[in-house]
């Protein structure tokens, strides 16, 4: 479970303060699939970065899986990212010099699994995204949709509780986007909690729950959306 209470995030650039999140409140339950929409600059990425422990917040309360995130130091946050969170990025963020197998291997190395366990997880997850046959390929030899599938395999290999995706389909054409979305739905059905930021309303509506961020807070619309999907 993810609980954010009155989270504020202020960016200071010279004399200018940007309030990216204003008393942001949100609870995400185990097994949820939450899509996050909202205008550009409203704070979606900021929210996701804080949720994923990539950024710290200025004040407020944030517990993730029962842990008070505010208490963690940098190493603790790194470990928690590695163990509990999987990331999928708009730009895929694969390591161009490593083949698919090695790309999926990276977070597993940080975790310290032995070679056999790593191999099992890599093969299983590449299988799961339908790319097991291309293990030795480099990212540059794949289409965008395929690269995003590898990124999803990498995110899943550590068996995270949460999968966070910031516009995972933003760089894909609609057909590939549909494929990735379907894959995310499958993953969610298998038990992983997903939070996905997207500009694509049609995809957003496929989530179990849709929230909208406006001016750094969750707007009331999410209630409507929840009702609509109910």
């Amino acid at each position, binding site marked *: 479970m993810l609980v954010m209470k009155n989270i504020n995030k202020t960016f200071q650039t010279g004399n200018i303060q940007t309030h990216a999140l204003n008393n942001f409140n949100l609870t995400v339950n185990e097994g949820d699939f939450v899509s996050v929409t909202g205008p550009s600059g409203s704070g979606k990425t900021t929210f996701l970065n804080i949720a994923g422990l*990539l950024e710290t917040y200025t004040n407020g309360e944030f517990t993730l899986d029962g842990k008070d995130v505010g208490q963690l130091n940098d190493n603790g946050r790194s470990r928690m990212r590695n163990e509990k969170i999987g990331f999928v*990025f708009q730009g895929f963020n694969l390591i*161009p010099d490593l083949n698919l197998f090695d790309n999926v291997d990276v977070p597993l190395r940080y975790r310290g699994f032995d070679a056999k366990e790593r191999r099992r997880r890599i093969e299983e997850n590449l299988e799961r995204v339908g790319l097991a046959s291309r293990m030795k390929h480099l990212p540059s030899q794949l289409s965008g949709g395929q690269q995003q599938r590898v990124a999803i395999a990498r995110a899943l290999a550590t068996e995270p509780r949460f999968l966070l995706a910031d516009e995972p389909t933003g760089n894909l054409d609609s057909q590939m986007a549909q494929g990735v979305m379907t894959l995310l739905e499958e993953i969610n059905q298998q038990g992983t909690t997903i939070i996905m930021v997207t500009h694509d309303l049609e995809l957003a509506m496929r989530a179990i729950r849709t929230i909208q961020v406006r001016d750094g807070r969750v707007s009331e619309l999410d209630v409507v959306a929840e009702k609509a999907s109910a």
Partner: protein
Amino acid sequence: MIEIGLIVRALLRNKIGALLIALQIALTMTIMVNAIFMIQDRQSQMQRESGLDEANTFYLTNTVFGKDYNLQAEMQTDLNSIRKTPGVIDALQINAIPLSGGGWSMSLQHEPGDDKDTIGSAVYMVDDHAINTLGVELLAGTNFSAEDIEWRVDGQSTWPSKTIITKAFAEQLYPDNWETALGKTIYISQNQPMQVIGIIKTLQAPWNGWGGVERSMLVPFQMETQSSYYFIRTESGRRDELMPIIEKTLAESNKERIIRRVTTLEETRKRSYRRHNATNKILTTVVITLTLITGFGIVGLAIFSINRRTKQIGTRRAIGATKWQVMRYFLVENFLISCVGVIIGIAGAIALNMWLVKTFNLTPIGFELIAFGAVALFIVGQLAVLYPAKKAALIPPATATRTV
């Protein structure tokens, strides 16, 4: 867990930069090891003992211009007066000064004849005060007696019948057992016999760069000549005080000659090895400069590759790398590059050394020096990459989502 496999595979996709740095490390190692080797070689040359009591020894030149000057008698008067001066241990007339760069050498042989193998030796013309004045150690045999000393005029080609030689010369003459040289007759000027009556431990020739620098012989000659050296040994610590006194006494005792170039043996040693010292300084500068260039090269490549991989590093942090794991990546990467560089460097160092050994007749390089070079370059590499690696570790994980 150290991701060596991943680092190697990523490196192999970016070979050129890494290879250039590895080659730079190899080249630096090759030159560093051999330069240090040459520095050490020179230093050990400089540390060789001349055999003299250097700290308490000085010499001067006595040049006679007076007509009807009784060279023999005046020289004896000079030496007697120097020897009687309080604080002087002993003094003599000599034809050449060790380490000075100028002197005499002769070829000696076991058998008389013009087609025999010869061995070169420096020749010092001295009297029976030589052992005491030079401060050399007589290992076997006896000193010259006063009756052994002959007068020699300029241009004379005959030699006395006795000699005292250094142990190094005896070893060259009788490689099986140098002590057997004692009492043997050797031949100078192809056919003039000389009996070895004594063997001294060490007395260097005047030429420090000569391979036979340890081979010298004392010949019982007093020179009836217009210009020669007086060589003076003082009691410990009294050299500087006696130098002007003796110079003045000599100059005033007889105005038909001039006393010049009053010089300590320490100055002579310094001048003798000025080239060595200068070369060592240059070599040291080369080693330091090369090492710095290599260090900066490593820093440069690391910063370049980190700037290029900012997003990748942010992504690694986002998927769970700790700061230390990011840092370690670059330390290990540098270590691997250094390994390649050092391995090539070892081959290069040995190859260059083999050439140097062949060309300049040096002894081959020691294993310790190669090990030192390798360790030094590993340390340089790790130190050089430390700052960029720290910088990489500070790349925030949000870089993964904030940059496109």
